[in-house]
């Protein structure tokens, strides 16, 4: 039983890692820009396909492909900010609808470029770290965990210790006051979009060798991300990370000890309970909610 619990915990830590990258990105975008980006799951998908195109098809080193995924999807985020969200800045519902349209565009482009068959890309490494003979974690999953910790720590430092980070947080707290202080709303929106989208793309790129890649894979990712940010608190980065861990552990343990369908139901039930008991989420604030 101990081995089963330990193995399941390792599986959950891996899941929490990539979920937190996606969720933090989504929270950052909503927190600063006040818009719900429904195309966030597709940004994850694009990150995976960058790895397909570079690492699988052109033998580019994996971590170079991951970095390219982060940058490319970050730039895609800038495009979204400029073309979709900026013109609709005073119309959050319009921004939401526009993001839905953009997700369909991204899916269609993925189908056109890569077809609809699931892509299976070569493993980054077949090395496995084994504990006590029965508990194992593939090194490829360790890469995801470590990268997530490093990137989230870097984001924390950026937000807490740099002027750009303070500007982002100020814009998230009170955009009007921030603007009165001379903080460029457009600039902070662009930074938030680049980082938020880039994190989603990086999560997709890192997990690409570990999942089946297809143009519609973003659907389950965005559902999970929404559950996490609602549970964690809309607009709270700390809440997103904590909720990612909670959700990943709940989902993984229920899948392992019961089944995956029940795990999905449990995740949704968790979200409903939080909405009833504390509608702002575990760490959310009333105004942003």
């Amino acid at each position: 039983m101990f081995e089963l619990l330990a193995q399941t915990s390792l599986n959950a830590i891996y899941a929490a890692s990539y979920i937190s990258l996606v969720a933090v990105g989504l929270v950052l975008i909503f927190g600063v820009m006040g818009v719900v980006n429904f195309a966030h799951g597709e940004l994850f998908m694009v990150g995976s396909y960058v790895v397909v195109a570079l690492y699988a098809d052109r033998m580019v080193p994996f971590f170079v492909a991951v970095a390219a995924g982060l940058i490319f999807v970050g730039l895609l985020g800038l495009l979204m900010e400029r073309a979709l969200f900026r013109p609709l800045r005073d119309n959050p519902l319009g921004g939401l609808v526009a993001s839905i349209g953009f997700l369909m565009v991204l899916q269609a482009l993925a189908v056109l470029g890569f077809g609809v068959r699931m892509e299976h890309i070569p493993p980054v490494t077949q090395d496995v770290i084994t504990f006590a003979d029965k508990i194992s974690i593939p090194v490829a999953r360790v890469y995801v965990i470590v990268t997530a910790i490093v990137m989230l720590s870097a984001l924390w430092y950026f937000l807490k210790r740099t002027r750009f980070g303070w500007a982002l947080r100020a814009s998230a707290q009170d955009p009007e006051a921030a603007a009165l202080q001379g903080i460029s709303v457009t600039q902070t929106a662009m930074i938030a979009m680049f980082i938020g989208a880039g994190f989603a793309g990086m999560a997709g790129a890192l997990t690409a060798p570990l999942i089946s890649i297809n143009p519609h894979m973003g659907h389950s990712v965005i559902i999970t991300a929404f559950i996490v940010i609602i549970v964690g608190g809309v607009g709270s980065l700390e809440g997103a990370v904590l909720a990612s861990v909670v959700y990943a552990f709940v989902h993984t343990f229920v899948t392992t000890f019961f089944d995956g369908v029940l795990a999905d139901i449990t995740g949704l039930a968790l979200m409903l309970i939080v909405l009833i008991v504390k509608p702002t989420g575990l760490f959310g604030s009333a105004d942003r909610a």
Partner: protein
Amino acid sequence: MFSNILKNGLSRRTFLKSTAATALAAGLPSIALAAGEPIKIGFLAPLTGATAAWGAPGLSGCEIWAEKVNAAGGIKIGDNSHMVEFVSYDNEYDPAKARTGATKLIREDDVKFVMMLGGDTWPGVQPVADRTGMLFSTLLPSDLSPDTTTLLAPTEVHPIYLVTGVQWLAENKPELKTAVMCAQDDALGLPSVATYLAAFEAAGIEMQDEPLLFDPATTDFAPIVTRLLSTNPDIVCLDTCYSDYVHPICEQLFQQGYKGQIISATADFYDQMIAKTSKEFMEGFIFQFPDFDDPALNGDNINFEDANGFYEEYNKRFPGQWGAVSWEYAAIMQLWKAAAEKAGSVEPDAVLAAMKDGGKGKHAFGDADWWGTEMFGIDNALVGDWPVVVIEDGKAVIKSFKSIPAWYEQHGDLLIKHMSAYDQMWNQRG
């Protein structure tokens, strides 16, 4: 009728009669073939999406088959020869799209026969079949019921052929005594689960856990594999998981240190699985679909024409794309062609009668019987022998042909028991 209208005007009764006649004629498949007119065959299967591996490669195989047949003069119906061509419609494994596709193929494309994967898509198509009387084929005999009088399962007999793999496993590896199983929770997975449970029980292999049914949207299989391995099973059964699940599950089995036996319905693109795991890990993997360059397919019992040549041509034109169904739809066409030529007609009833004449048919893997009344309520499945395939030294090899009817004669009660428990008998399905 027209002269009456001209003389007496259009009465309500005349209007209703003429409208009904027009609608009926529009719904029925047209029967007559003009000399030289090509015979169009409908290919209604998933060409995209998670189940595309069980549709698209089959269409490629049909193209090769059609070129060969046309080069030899086509299909002879009466005194005339007709070229054959395929009209495909991607139903994306969606019943509503399948219904739309069936209607289009019959009404607009004037096909004479429609081949399908079946499964979740058949319920969408059945009303069209009932209305038009068109002859359909499915790869999944679990679609059959007493109501499906124009639906045949002449090649693949999923899931009942799965018993042959377990039977061979029990005979050749009697030391393996425990098993676990996982499957996606859908119309492909559930009847297969029931069949494997019956086969394991017949072989005296103990199931260590309830079959683990997972959401078809699953992408991370680590928790599922952790659960499967928690009881240290001798055998992990992958049921009829889509090939896009078999690959990541096998990877996880490899990464979590599994060293036991794996059995599955399919192992499409097993060379990719070997690349992601190892030749040693995949050694002994049991499944049910041979590569057609296997010398065992040159035997006198085999009714698939020039299996090795077909495989060679397929791999030349579609490298790396050979899968479980690459030959199946072409095999169905062989049967259809023979029946249409025998009947001297492409009319569905005539072809159906010719195909089932005498209760026997020439299945790709040997002479077989039209079978299934007890299991499906109708004897529209062509059932005989089925190969057991094992990966040895990185290559799929046919180890044996096993008789499905012989297994059923001994253990059919178990199969009915488990099918009933999962609501998969013909009289339980909605």
